[in-house]
């Protein structure tokens, strides 16, 4: 990669981090998800700033073509995020189900109301 490309990646990471912080500030994003994304930003910046780092990691992993390592890490991370979201979604579904049950139980104790 050229120096310009490295600078571009760093700028993009910083802008993304600021955007994430802005979402937290506006109460649009829970801080636990912010932590997830900011961790990525923090990991990305040194990789962009020190190109030899990626080559060193590739060498350690036995990968000949350094960008492959980057793609491998990126896909691995996105996979992790998606699995994590599936897990969160499952938890939310079971909570919604519990809430629906609670409402039904509360209604059972109420005098009957006429619909329409």
């Amino acid at each position: 990669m050229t120096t310009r490309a490295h600078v571009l990646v760093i700028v993009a990471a910083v802008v993304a981090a600021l955007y994430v912080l802005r979402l937290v500030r506006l109460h649009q994003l829970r801080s636990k998800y912010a932590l997830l994304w900011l961790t990525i930003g923090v990991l990305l910046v040194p990789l962009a700033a020190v190109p030899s780092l990626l080559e060193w990691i590739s060498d350690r992993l036995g990968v000949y073509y350094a960008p492959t390592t980057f793609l491998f890490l990126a896909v691995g991370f996105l996979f992790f995020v998606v699995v994590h979201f599936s897990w969160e979604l499952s938890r939310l579904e079971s909570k919604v189900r519990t809430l629906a049950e609670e409402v039904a139980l509360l209604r059972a104790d109420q005098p009957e109301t006429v619909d329409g």
Partner: protein
Amino acid sequence: MTALVVIPAYNEEASLAATLKELASGVPSVDVLVVDDGSTDATAAIAHKGNAAVLRLPFNLGVGGAVRAGLRYAVEHHYERAVVVDADGQHPPAAIEALLATLDGGADLAIGTRFSEGSDAYPVGWLRHRAMGLLHRIVHWRTGQAFTDTTSGFRAFDRPLIELLARDYPVEYLADTVEVLIMVCEAGYTVVEVPTPMRPRAAGQASTRRLKLVVNYLRLLIGILASATRHRPRRQS
């Protein structure tokens, strides 16, 4: 002046009965609300037996969520004051009286602290001690006030604060104490620390593991960092 003691309780059947009994004899003038935070034991039944009002959450929301539910109850039932007290008997009735007296003295938020002079020694682990020192500095930076114990959950609120926090209470662990403190100071309310004697936990276990603690601190720092530039409306005086 009507006051409500809010007790967030998650599987506290071992200690709750004694705590309620002590409150009934020590501070008979206050009402007691137990927020059963999705317990799987007899917490709610014991709370009913102890003549407390009970909110049963359908699943576990964590301490912050339970406190917020309790504050909403206080708003709906027109309480002038609310005191958040641990279910495990750490906070003696005399200390609750001390917090309420501090509100009488003009404070909007009174925090019972463990480390001030005049309080009994309270041992904490090394990591936690360091982390608390960091929080102390951050809160000092944001509020200009030096609090000795920023994470103490033993707090008394007056009516305007109950209303504010019932609407806008950060429920995550740690944020529910530290971020609230910063929020309240920045909104221009008066916060006073009250050194109180606290006993070791009567039963049950402290709820945080080390890795989780680190993650929680990082989360909190992000929240504080993000809010560092947030504009908040000042209190009308």
